[in-house]
């Protein structure tokens, strides 16, 4: 680090100031002040927010990373503010500085420091990821699976809209996304044409929709609320208009919504594939890829 031990280098004749000590002290002071402030006042404000367990986890994760990088920023700020002032050329004449070529102690300190930070971040991120999948698409064979029963919804993306299919409601299909509150939800994201990406912003969910691929993502909803859904992968002409709102509602409202949708759906149901309860596949065969076609 910049914690240079100035005695290690031949000091120029007119400068015996301990610049290294000054920088290190200023860095410690600034970091000690800035890091808690950032962690407490900035971290929790980073989106996506607390509408789901996964969203909260991302906020927690972001808070940690911000806290780790704050001292790094402080070091660079202190170094450059101090260094560019203290080491600027004082006259127009070109004067050489001291020929310091190396100091292996600083190198070792720096390498160890950056390695520790990097390994910590990677370990921390892996731990957080394996908790509950962090809201990211995990492909057909998810490795971070929450225990317990899950409410399943299939998300079918096409140019340029999302269709939602509810196996537990007899294969009901709708262009509205309603999810029950305080529930583990298992979303199966697929596409009928180009690559799309299902992004439920407030829930902290993003999963690419690839044709012929079943991309599974888990999210645990919290209290009732509304969230934005939009496509996050350029999918052609009307990509920008590929959005709608989703709703997290309590179970009574959800039943009412489901009953209403089923009434609407009854008219076209005879033309759709049979639901699982009547011997059909869990998802519409039209949409759900055969296992051998699964990627991953």
């Amino acid at each position, binding site marked *: 680090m*910049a914690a240079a031990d*100035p005695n290690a*280098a031949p000091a*120029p004749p007119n400068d015996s100031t301990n610049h290294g000590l000054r920088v290190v002290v200023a860095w410690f002071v600034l970091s000690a002040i800035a890091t808690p402030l950032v962690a407490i006042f900035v971290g929790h404000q980073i*989106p*996506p927010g607390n509408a789901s367990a996964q969203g909260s*986890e*991302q906020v927690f*994760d*972001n808070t940690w*990373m911000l806290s780790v990088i704050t001292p790094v*920023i402080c070091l*660079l700020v202190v170094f450059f503010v101090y*260094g560019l002032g203290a*080491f*600027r*050329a004082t006259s127009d004449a*070109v*004067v*050489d*500085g*001291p020929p*310091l*070529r*190396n100091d292996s102690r*600083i*190198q070792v300190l720096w390498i160890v420091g*950056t*390695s520790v930070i*990097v*390994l910590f*971040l*990677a370990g921390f*991120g*892996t731990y957080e*990821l394996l908790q509950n999948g962090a*809201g*990211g*698409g995990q*492909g057909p*064979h998810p490795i971070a699976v929450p225990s317990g029963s899950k409410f399943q919804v299939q998300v079918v993306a096409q140019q340029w809209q999302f269709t939602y299919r509810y196996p537990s409601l007899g294969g009901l299909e709708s262009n509205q996304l309603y999810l029950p509150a305080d529930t583990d939800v298992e979303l199966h994201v697929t596409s009928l044409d*180009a690559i799309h990406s299902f992004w439920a*912003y407030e829930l902290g969910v*993003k*999963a690419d929709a*690839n*044709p*012929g*691929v*079943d991309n599974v993502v888990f999210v645990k909803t919290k209290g009732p609320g509304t969230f934005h859904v*939009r496509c*996050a992968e*350029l999918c*052609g*002409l*009307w*990509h*920008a208009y590929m959005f709608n709102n989703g709703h997290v509602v309590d179970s009574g409202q959800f039943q009412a919504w489901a009953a209403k949708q089923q009434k609407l759906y009854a008219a076209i149901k005879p033309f759709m594939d049979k639901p699982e309860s009547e011997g059909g596949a869990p998802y519409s065969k039209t949409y759900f890829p055969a296992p051998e076609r699964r*990627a*991953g």
Partner: protein
Amino acid sequence: MTEAAIAPPPPLWRRLIGFNLLTGIVLGIGGWYVGWYGAHAIAGPSIEYFGDTDYNELSVYLAYIGGVVGFLAGLGFLNYPFARLRGYPPSLREKETGGWTRYFGLCTDHKVVGIQYLWGIGLFFFIGGLNAMLIRTEQLSPHSQSFPMGTYLTIVGMHGTMMMGMMTSGILGPFANYLVPIMIGARRMAFPRIEALTFWLLMAAGAILTTTIFFGGFPTGWTGYAPLQTEANAGMDNYILFFALVGISVTLLGLNMIATILTMRAPGLTWTRLPIFVWGVLSTAVLMVLAAPVLVAVLAMGALDRTAQTSFFNAAAGGSSYLYENLFWVFGHPEVYILALPGFAIVLELLPVFSRKPLWGYRLAVAGLLGVSLLSWFVWQHHLFVSGINGDLRPFYMLSTELISIPTGFTFLCGMMTLWRGSIRFTVPMLFCLAWFFNFLIGGLSGVFLSDVPSDVTTHGSFFSMAHFHYTIMGGLVFTFFAAIYYWLPKMTGWELNERLGKIHFWTMFVFFNSTFAPLFAAGFLGQSRRAPVYTGNLKFLNDWVSISAFLLGISMLVFLYNLVRSVAFVKKPAEANPWASRSIEFQLPSPVPVHNFDRIPVFSSDPYGYGEGPAPKWVVPAGAPAGRE
């Protein structure tokens, strides 16, 4: 050495007839039509073209391939192989004298090619920049207002593709071609004719991408993701041809650099005496040679899907959209380090000059460059964290992505320790180098968020990632590109640039660059999706702020353009041979550098960073030194 006999130059009209750019354009257009009608003879009846979208794709490919062949033939690239076939003796050099016309044709002088690259890339950089201005015009409003949707996507795609494709050679094209032979004490590149070919291929590619507007543009952005690529209209073929030609050009450029650096170093120039810029060029060139062919291959597959109805990427017929994504990013991630590494090298090359100290930790700096170059091969799937591909490999890619910040940190350490206790002069190139530290710090640390899977879930595909790579590429590459221009252009052209205008350019660019891209981190976190002209109303203020900053950033580029044209075309104040008091060898030569660089091949006895270590070595050794091969 074959100095041309002094003879009166022929009149201008005579010089215009022959193998040059003019002939190249004429034959290029001719070749285009030959290809077009040839393809119709093969693949179907002749159909009306402009205005008709129902023609076959093959005609577009063959037309442009014919055009490129005609263009190169007109420039004279076929003369040499034909001359050899007919038994004439080989000539390594071509058109190295002859006034300004040598800039408009095949010229094998590496210094001419470097300047050709600078103007050629500058032209397309300007077009790409204008596209950015149009994007920001559209983003002034949360609704789609300025352009039709397809036009907007074409503008976005052209901006991204132009910048990524052209700036791949942004440093190596102009500066490495010009400087590497001088820095290593050679008189030419290893393959001078291939050197010229890389430049003219790039220009042909640029023309192809620009003419995509005649074929309806393309809707995919610079990544060209496949199922959408396969279904897109004919403008997509221009994208494929552009990137494939860039890939070929870049591969050849890299090969040439590697061969030159490995084989043509002057006596005494050991690996530990090599200027760090040459190390940066070498590590970049290795990436170029290995990565760019993958791009050419994946685009060839895309072209086959579009013309011959193969199904590499068609899931319904057994292909996979993942295949495209995977192959593209196998190229694509080394590609971003192809863009970033020369920037590292320029910073490390310039800091010793302006802080009057040796480069600190030379070996660590080299290790940093090579480490980034190596690790960049193991990170590409972080672009696919939420795609559902290899879900169980995400921890590995998270680790490898974060590991790459360790060798990047070497560059920071070496740069910072070079400044330490120095005697820092805030010249224009130095200011751009110092800005690199700021920009790349922000770019790198925002990359930490993107490399972390839980955080990436929200930031992926949003304006956050867009701001991140603009900080690394514009903040990392374009800033150092300008540092290199202000530092080396007086040497290259022999004319001084105005320092006051340079400082105005720097400060406006630095301020408005940050004012443009820093708010986009917030916009991304707040949920603004990339490449969409429509966004939620709460983001309007941020976007208006960004747009106005972007326009001012555009104006700061005009300040540079004014400075350049004014200094080079009107004021013409001759530059000193060594305006920066640099110990690097190129500044020991007169400005501009003579055609054959050195009278005698220099003998190196140290690296060029010995500031404060006694008098500068005498680079150009008098009698007794090897005369050098031609």
